[in-house]
């Protein structure tokens, strides 16, 4: 390797503003924070974390070319690269240069030093250069088994283990003697690069794919896909609601390690009638959305946000969940996998970096190939080509599965809604949902069927007098004594229920149902229950009368329930205080017997705290990039002056010089002491002096700054 005559930083310094801006766009991590100068930028761009990030954005073709360059002697000309790969390499090399993984030295390419570390010791399975003379003609006379040894090592790894190099088998010994192998240490032999290249026929890779593999799949009609997606969307939203309701009724207990236990997952899956991995997915999304939370007492409960969620339209509900799905780094497919039994839904072990990027990549792929249900192998190979470092066959499967559950896809092909979600367009779900129906069909077995989604009002109205038995495109309701009673409890009368049903039913009301309603409403209300907060009893009926007529006690709104009993809506302690103030002598009684219970809807006390999301660094906007480039250039100019020492000047000299330069409108370098006494050099354009302060434009920030004259240690013209 010849020593570079030009450094990576030098080359970057020579790039135009536009090229630097492009570098920032391609590698957003370089801009946060903005490096002070090009040297800092080069150092960061050559740092391992940044290189790994850049590598993730490469497709397989680009990465293979980068590996090829690493395997060649630097610097490498484009012609050399093309001869080792193919003519199409030109575009990829340009892209690699733009992203700062290559730099130019006299029209030939070099890689920043750390890339070699990243690519590895043996790029493309090639061993080190031997630099000894190798005569391939000698192979003709190779002892038995020698060529086989070489053949096995040709495509890497180039390392071979032997028991002892000194006592190696004759064939290996011969190979070492003739320089076909290098004895690396007492137990390892290496295949020199030249030998491998010879056997590889001058190529570095067996085959390189310069183009994205074909995306194949079963053809679907967009309309059919959208229809299926709508079914998926409405089903998914219903699952979400059902799960929340179910966990409100029977909250699962979180595991000690955090997360949902296998048994609870199973129960939930059974309740929803779906597979466990699907239930885990629903639960995860609700968790990420803050709709459920692990409460302080380790119960997993819906949050108040869930109540808000319930009031939203299906489109809004779906959007809120689908967006999170795209962004989250949590991979619910890991739950309950055979190899990773301990991974629990809602647990701490589901984060996988790059998940979101992989999802977006896959959805984008589907958008590019509409009306197609991808063949699994095909999409896996495409993903592997596009993002070799991120691709994971299992993840791809899971992501496709989740996309289908969510309705991003329908019948495997991208739906209009999934595409709109990715683009941020109007989703149009509400319009695509089946038209709500405004009637039901009542049958003699006391069931009613709404042959389609009911309008919200109707659904609520029927929900109070009938139990839902089956959901889906249609809803099946069942009338029972209990459900009719519930309707009566809601203040409806038997006749009202009957009239309501007659009005909305397309079929005549079956006689047995009329009987049922009549039976229940006849018995309903025979027993009367009222609400009060306290009671007052006294065996002296006269005293009771007196209390009732006491004007001072009117605010208590005492009511007579029986000759010796009064009740009041105020709490018993307030009642006692009021009575005492009015001069009576009441005593508190142990409260037994009256119990008022209302159905409790359990909600978590803690605020929603969805798990953090590991996001990828997003591409910065153009304004940010432009200002970053400007700052970089300024930093560059400043640092280029740094080496020069600024001669110290006295305060008077300083003032004189400044006046002089202001008139000349020249740029200056000044030494400026900060509050701690540290002196830094600033590159400025002086503007004016007032009140012992120099007003000047600071090149580093591009802003007007004030410098106190006494702190200026020296002045010298720029350049």
């Amino acid at each position, binding site marked *: 390797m010849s020593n570079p005559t030009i450094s990576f930083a030098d080359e970057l310094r020579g790039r135009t503003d536009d090229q630097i801006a492009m570098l920032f766009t391609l590698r957003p991590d370089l801009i946060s924070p903005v490096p002070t100068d090009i040297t800092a930028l080069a150092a960061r761009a050559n740092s391992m974390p940044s290189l790994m990030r850049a590598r993730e954005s490469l497709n397989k073709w680009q990465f293979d070319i980068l590996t090829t360059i690493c395997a060649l002697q630097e610097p490498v000309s484009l012609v050399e690269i093309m001869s080792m790969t193919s003519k199409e390499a030109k575009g990829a090399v340009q892209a690699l240069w733009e992203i700062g993984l290559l730099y130019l030295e006299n029209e030939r390419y070099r890689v920043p030093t750390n890339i070699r570390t990243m690519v590895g010791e043996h790029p493309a399975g090639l061993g080190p250069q031997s630099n000894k003379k190798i005569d391939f003609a000698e192979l003709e006379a190779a002892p038995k088994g020698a060529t086989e040894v070489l053949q096995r090592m040709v495509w890497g790894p180039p390392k071979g283990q032997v028991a002892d190099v000194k006592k190696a088998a004759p064939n290996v010994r011969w190979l070492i003697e003739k320089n076909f192998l290098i004895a690396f240490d007492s137990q390892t032999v290496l295949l020199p690069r030249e030998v491998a290249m010879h056997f590889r026929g001058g190529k570095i890779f067996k085959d390189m794919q310069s183009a994205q593999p074909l995306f194949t799949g079963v053809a679907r009609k967009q309309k059919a896909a959208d229809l299926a997606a709508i079914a998926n969307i409405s089903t998914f939203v219903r699952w979400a609601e059902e799960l929340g309701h179910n966990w409100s009724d029977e909250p699962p207990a979180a595991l000690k390690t955090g997360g949902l236990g296998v048994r609870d997952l199973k129960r939930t899956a059974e309740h929803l*009638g779906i597979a466990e991995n699907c239930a885990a997915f629903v639960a995860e999304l609700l968790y990420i959305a803050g709709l459920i939370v692990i409460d302080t007492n380790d119960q997993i409960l819906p949050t108040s946000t869930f109540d808000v969620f319930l009031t939203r339209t299906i489109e809004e509900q779906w959007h809120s969940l689908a967006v999170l799905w795209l962004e989250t780094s949590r991979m619910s497919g890991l739950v309950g996998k055979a190899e990773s039994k301990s991974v629990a839904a809602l647990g701490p072990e589901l984060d996988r970096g790059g998940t979101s990027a992989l999802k977006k990549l896959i959805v984008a792929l589907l958008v590019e190939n509409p009306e197609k249900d991808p063949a699994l192998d095909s999409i896996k190979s495409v993903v592997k080509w596009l993002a070799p470092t991120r691709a994971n066959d299992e993840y791809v499967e899971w992501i496709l599965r989740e996309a289908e559950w969510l309705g991003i896809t329908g019948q495997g092909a991208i739906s209009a809604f999934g595409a709109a979600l990715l683009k941020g367009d109007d989703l149009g779900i509400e319009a695509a949902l089946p038209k709500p129906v405004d009637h039901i069909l009542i*049958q003699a077995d006391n069931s009613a069927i709404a042959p389609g989604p009911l309008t919200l009002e109707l659904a609520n109205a029927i929900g109070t007098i009938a139990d839902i038995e089956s959901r889906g495109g249609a809803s099946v309701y069942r009338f029972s004594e209990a459900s009719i009673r519930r309707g009566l409890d809601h203040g409806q009368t038997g006749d009202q229920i009957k009239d309501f049903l007659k009005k909305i039913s397309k079929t005549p009301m079956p006689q047995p149902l009329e*009987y049922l309603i009549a039976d229940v409403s006849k018995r309903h209300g025979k027993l009367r229950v009222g609400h009060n907060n306290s009671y007052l009893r006294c065996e002296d009926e006269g005293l009771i009368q007196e209390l009732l007529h006491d004007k001072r006690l009117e605010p208590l709104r005492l009511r007579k329930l029986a000759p010796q009993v009064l009740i009041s809506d105020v709490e018993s302690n307030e009642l006692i205080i009021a009575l005492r103030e009015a001069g009576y002598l009441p005593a508190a009684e142990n409260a037994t017997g009256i119990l008022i219970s209302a159905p409790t809807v359990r909600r978590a006390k803690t605020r929603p705290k969805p798990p953090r999301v590991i996001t990828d660094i997003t591409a910065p906007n153009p304004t940010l990039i432009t200002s970053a480039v400007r700052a970089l250039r300024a930093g560059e100019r400043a640092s280029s002056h740094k080496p020069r020492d600024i001669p110290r000047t006295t305060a008077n000299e300083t003032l004189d010089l400044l006046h002089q330069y202001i008139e000349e409108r020249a740029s200056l370098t000044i030494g400026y002491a900060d509050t701690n006494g540290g002196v830094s050099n600033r590159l400025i354009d002086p503007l004016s002096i007032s009140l012992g302060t120099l007003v000047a434009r600071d090149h580093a920030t591009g802003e007007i700054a004030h410098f106190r004259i006494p702190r200026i240690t020296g002045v010298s013209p720029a350049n």
Partner: protein
Amino acid sequence: MTDGPLIVQSDKTLLLDIDHPLSDECRKSIAPFAELEKSPEHIHTYRLTPLGLWNARAAGHDAEQVIDVLLKYSRFAVPHALLVDIAETMSRYGRLRLEAHPVHGLTLVSHDPAVLKEVTRGKKIAPMLGLQIDDETIVVHPGQRGFLKQALLKLGWPAEDFAGYVDGEHHEIALREDGWSIRKYQSMAAEGFWHGGSGVVVLPCGAGKTIVGAAAMAHAKATTLILVTNTVAARQWRDELLRRTTLHEDEIGEYSGAKKEIRPVTIATYQVMTMRRKGVYTHLDLFDAIDWGLIIYDEVHLLPAPIFRFTADIQSRRRLGLTATLVREDGMEGEVFSLIGPKRFDVPWREIESQGYIAPADCVEVRITLTEEERLNYATAEQEDRYRFCSTTRTKLKVAVALARQHADDQVLVIGQYIDQLDALSEELGVPLIKGDTPVKERERLYNLYRSGEIKCLVVSKVANFSVDLPDATIAIQVSGTFGSRQEEAQRLGRILRPKADGRTARFYSLVARDTIDQDFAQNRQRFLAEQGYAYRIIDADEVLSKDSD
């Protein structure tokens, strides 16, 4: 959206809008793989179950057909997950096969080594298996054929049985169609069974299951063991076989508590088969007494659990199950599927009714208001006595008598559970009573008189529930019954659903005491009957009584 007649719900129920013009076509298409759960007047409910889907697979339907049907008729988009689930479930059937290997005998075969590996790992299954011959074949211990099928079904990998059957001892049997002819669906049922090898034929009560059995015997032409619920049913099978086939009296034996005849065609009762002495089943030898070529199980839905165990041992014999319903109250549908076989034929009640083979029925619930005194007594009765109390009140008796009198010209059956009540009814009406301790001879004599019309009214206890042929009963009056069991309801309705000569509507009265636990049970009954599509109405006892006083 196709606006089809079918709504596919995500809980795997299918709602069929029968007022839709395509409903008939759709019903025929979904019947092979979906179980009809209820069929009230407007919307019928079918359910997709693994057993149903596997039944369809056994009948030669594949997942693609099923999915096509759903997509074709569905009104709304069908969730993809459900379709995937269907395909997945159906693909499980037949992945494992039981085959007879020329060298190794019975083997479990699969072209999917992973599945084979999965099932052989099961703790219960491993001991039933022997040597693994290759990746795809494992020897099955002889005698484990049935138990293995049972266990595999529980794991969700039902095995298809290709191991074949023994022919059994040949015996000439043919149908003798003189003066009658086999109905089309009956012969289709027998053929469906024969081509399937073993399995269950589902036909409503009164649709002539005995003839299906006889036709199956004519196919097999082999010695046959017929298992029936009780002695009366055994005699009826015998009579029917004599009437419909070329069999002679001395070729048919009865194996029951009373007689122990073993003949080429032997009819045995469940009771005698499950009889135990000192914990040992004493009559099991019957299964080996003759080299049977066919075993018929009457009323499969009532098959007692021990019989399943015996059945597991005789998997190489052809088995035919006959029933009106695959629903078992003990949930042992899986046992029927794995041990007797998949459903081979099925016609819904309504279809046969519309063909005129069974009479339409009208169900009437008569609400009886208890007297003040009865109500007080009921309120204070012990919990366990309450049902008995409310279903045997004096008032009820009065109404029952009034009803029976109003139908004096019809053939009436009065059915009840409590003997005291039945005694009183029989006395009040002056008609004979048939109960558990009525000797078989006497029972048959009374039935014959009833059939011939000499007796217009009979009071029967629950012994009459099963397999009694009373062709001309047009009116049934149920005064009390055990806790609204669906089974019993179906049987009782079956009693009166036999075709009437003049096409009259049969009527099924049940008497219910208002505001008591009786009414709760009645609600189950109403639901069941309405689900089956019968007209159901409620009248007040006063209507009956006032009519009576006219």
